[in-house]
């Protein structure tokens, strides 16, 4: 080989990998160059201009300071999702020169060698734009709602999916311009298609699963609101499906992208000089998307049902409770449904804490109150028969909705509310509450006022006081807000007294149930320091089944009692003036 030949021939020999990488980097420059240019220009404009020429920046309406940085984050995240995909398009179509002839394709190279180089360059671009996006995020140092924490994983996944579809676009179109369009639009279309398929197919799988395990759609357990409405129950299931479904749809989208890239491997390596119809490939892709949509839906439905495994037993319990109440005699049902909390043998504090919970659900049968009753009032309460109680509560609502059943049940509730000998106060109040539509104010306030005026039992007084306060308006129960509760109860009674004394037309409804004298007696009990509660409570507190090894729990309970007594034993004039205006509550001594 002569010197001249070396100079013109061998001297510029590079390795195959190096040569292909340089070529592919040059092909990627078509997209990466302008993208970096646009991003850096905007970054310079947004961050630099307000520093250099703040007045000009304001004139241009540029976001400044933190706003400006925040503006860059979504921009860079968007670029991270789009640019690698478009780079893949440029790498795929870059081999084509005029008339579709291909230089690299005619050289003796394995397809994998050509692919590897393009894939490495695409990954490099992916890494660079990920770095830019997340570095911007870190610099901003704020938890952007869109890209904070776990959301970053989604962004990374979306960009990776885009990368696969970018390579795949070459299999479905002939020109680079339509390649960019397809790389952007096809994943969206596939995503929409997957969503549509999932919306159609997931309910079918759900019904199949429920049918196979004997799950009754009417009794879908819920932490929030239970309803027998089958439609809303199914929607509730959908809420549990959403997360696994989204994950499986994204996985399907990724698989479709990988298939597209595999389908286009020949084109990317240069085997596509002339015009070929992409219809067959698109048809295959559509079939794949539908199949994966069905598969995703099945996986999501099974995953959701597996996660909600406890629901099957809960579902059965609700169904048991529902069916037992539906078959019950109205008198017995009225009696059962108002046995909310037995007042005897419990600390007033505990009872009231539990009672508030019981009231909110209208129906808690005996046994519904569990050991959690001694827990903090703000904690979540759930008894061992909770699901069954839900079923019973719904069944009661169903029967109350039937006009014939409703009349019989209301009569039974009225009998219980009026029976001062056979039923204790709690049950009578619960029964009075059930006849709400027929004058719950009169029933409840009368019962509560009588209980306070007679004040045979400290718990009765506290319970009634809270009933008066709650009926007056929304408020916190005992022990938190005890002062508020006492004030509201007094104001409520004062209002009733004024109405009774005025002889207004409304007073007729109260006739035979409550008089001014009884109200005055009740007001006297509530206005004077209520020291009798401490006496009764001290005895009850000793009976609380608290473990001695739980000093923290006991200390917490004692503190709550101290708060309660501070509110109950102070003079009412320290809480409220004559006109009913609320004063500062007493400070609890440490």
């Amino acid at each position, binding site marked *: *080989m*002569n010197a*001249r*030949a*070396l*100079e*013109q*021939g*061998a001297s*510029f*020999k*590079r*390795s*195959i990998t*190096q*040569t*292909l990488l340089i*070529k592919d980097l*040059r*092909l990627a420059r078509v997209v990466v160059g302008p993208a970096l240019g646009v991003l850096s220009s905007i970054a310079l404009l947004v961050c630099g201009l307000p520093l250099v020429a703040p007045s000009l920046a304001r004139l241009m309406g540029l976001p400044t300071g933190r706003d400006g940085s925040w503006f860059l984050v979504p921009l860079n995240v968007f670029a991270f999702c789009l640019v690698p995909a478009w780079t893949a398009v440029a790498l795929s179509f*870059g081999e084509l*020169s*005029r*008339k*579709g*002839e*291909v*230089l*690299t*394709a*005619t*050289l*003796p*190279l*394995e397809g994998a060698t050509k692919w590897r180089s393009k894939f490495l360059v695409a990954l490099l671009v992916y890494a660079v734009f990920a770095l830019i996006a997340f570095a911007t995020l870190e610099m901003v140092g704020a938890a952007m709602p869109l890209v904070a924490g776990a959301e970053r994983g989604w962004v990374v996944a979306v960009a990776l999916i885009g990368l696969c579809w970018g390579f795949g676009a070459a299999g479905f179109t002939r020109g680079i311009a339509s390649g960019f369009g397809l790389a952007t639009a096809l994943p969206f279309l596939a995503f929409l298609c997957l969503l549509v398929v999932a919306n159609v197919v997931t309910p079918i799988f759900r019904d199949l699963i429920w049918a196979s395990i004997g799950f009754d759609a009417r009794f879908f357990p819920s932490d929030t609101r239970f309803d027998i409405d089958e439609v809303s129950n199914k929607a509730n299931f959908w809420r549990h499906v959403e997360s696994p479904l989204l994950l499986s749809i994204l996985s399907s989208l990724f698989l479709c992208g990988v298939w597209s890239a595999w389908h286009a491997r*020949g084109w990317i390596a*240069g*085997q*596509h*000089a*002339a*015009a*070929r*119809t992409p219809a067959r490939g698109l048809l295959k892709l559509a079939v794949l998307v539908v199949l994966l949509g069905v598969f995703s839906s099945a996986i999501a439905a099974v995953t959701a049902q597996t996660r909600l495994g406890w629901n099957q037993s809960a579902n059965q319990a609700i169904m048991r409770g529902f069916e037992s109440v539906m078959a019950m005699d109205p008198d017995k049902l009225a009696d059962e449904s108002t046995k909310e909390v037995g007042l005897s043998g419990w600390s007033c504090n505990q009872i009231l804490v539990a009672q508030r919970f019981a009231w909110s659900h209208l129906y808690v049968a005996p046994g519904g109150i569990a050991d959690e009753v001694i827990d903090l009032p703000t904690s979540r309460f759930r008894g061992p028969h909770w699901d069954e109680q839900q079923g019973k509560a719904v069944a009661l609502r169903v029967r109350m909705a039937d006009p014939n059943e409703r009349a019989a049940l209301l009569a039974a509730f009225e009998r219980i509310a009026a029976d001062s000998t056979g039923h204790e106060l709690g049950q009578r109040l619960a029964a009075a509450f059930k006849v709400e539509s027929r004058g719950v104010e009169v029933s409840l306030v009368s019962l509560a006022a009588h209980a306070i005026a007679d004040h045979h039992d400290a718990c009765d007084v506290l319970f009634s006081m809270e009933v008066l306060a709650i009926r007056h308006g929304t408020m916190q129960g005992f022990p938190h807000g005890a002062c508020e509760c006492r004030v509201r109860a007094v104001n409520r009674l004062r209002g009733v007294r004024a109405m009774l004394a005025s002889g207004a037309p409304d007073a007729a409804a109260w006739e035979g149930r409550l008089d001014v004298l009884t109200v005055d007696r009740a007001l006297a009990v509530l206005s004077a320091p209520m020291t009798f509660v401490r006496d009764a409570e001290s005895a009850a507190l000793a009976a609380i089944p608290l473990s001695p090894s739980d000093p923290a729990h006991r200390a917490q309970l004692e503190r709550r009692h101290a708060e309660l007594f501070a509110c109950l034993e102070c003079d009412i004039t320290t809480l409220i003036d004559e006109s009913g205006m609320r004063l500062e509550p007493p400070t609890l001594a440490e």
Partner: protein
Amino acid sequence: MSHAPKETETRLEPTPAFFAGGLAGGLAGGLALTCKALALRFGRVHALAGFDLNLAEGESVGLVGRNGAGKSTLFRCIVGTEVLDAGAIELPAGLSRVEFLSRVGFVPDTLSAYDWMSAGDAIAYVAALQPRFDSAWCAQLQRLLGIDRSAKVRDLSRGMQARLAFVLGLSHRPSLVLLDEPLLGVDAVTHDVVLETLARMRCEIGATMLIASHQLGDLARLTDRVVFVDRGKVIESVPTDELVTKTTRLHVHGVPRGWVPPPNLVHTRWLDDAAVLTIQGDVAVVEQRILSSHPNARIERVPLSIHEACADRLRGMEVLP
């Protein structure tokens, strides 16, 4: 089969590396290739429809056909940039696809190189990826064809592009040379140099050649036989020598319009009052038949160039189904 070039004059320097590499590297002789019933369709267009072709080792074959006959598609199928719908291209035994490509030199009708590369970059690119690249031979080709290494591919004229395509395709001394209209736009001198180079390649390393060209004079110089192609099929294969020596044109005067000439002629047409017949084979037999039916007819033999011979064959193919 003769591998000798049709014209002996040469200006190509006989470089020792060229001969040594060609023989010592096991490249002496060409590659055989068989195309069997190749079929390829683009939408409704059948670019190849049962294309059969046998290329013997060292043979040089010209492909002649009208535009759209399937010649360029055949080349793309051979080098693998098109995937066949049916049929097979049988490579020599024991040769993988990659090894085959390393011995194939493809010169397309349009330069296939990245626009952003300079001519030097394009050559360096091929040098890195073509394991049989011969630097000395490449340098000699560049010098002969006057390649400006610094010029960008996108700035090259059509003729310069053809020259560069020639260098890129042949700088590894291929055993099978595929030329798809390689001389479009080149000047007369370069045209001559290219023909000389190809002739030397046939002569010295016995490369097999498949040349598609509308410049039929070139085919006469370079090929052993000419294959006529129409609508994706081989219609006829004729030894190049016979195209000129055994093809005759007769002008027949004194026969009435509507006269039906003897069968199996290459082509028949009317020129004023004379019937123009193109005949392949024994012309005396045809003359005797005409005179026996029309004793007053006057027959005139007209010499034919290869261009005219091929053109008449192509015209004749138009009536074929």
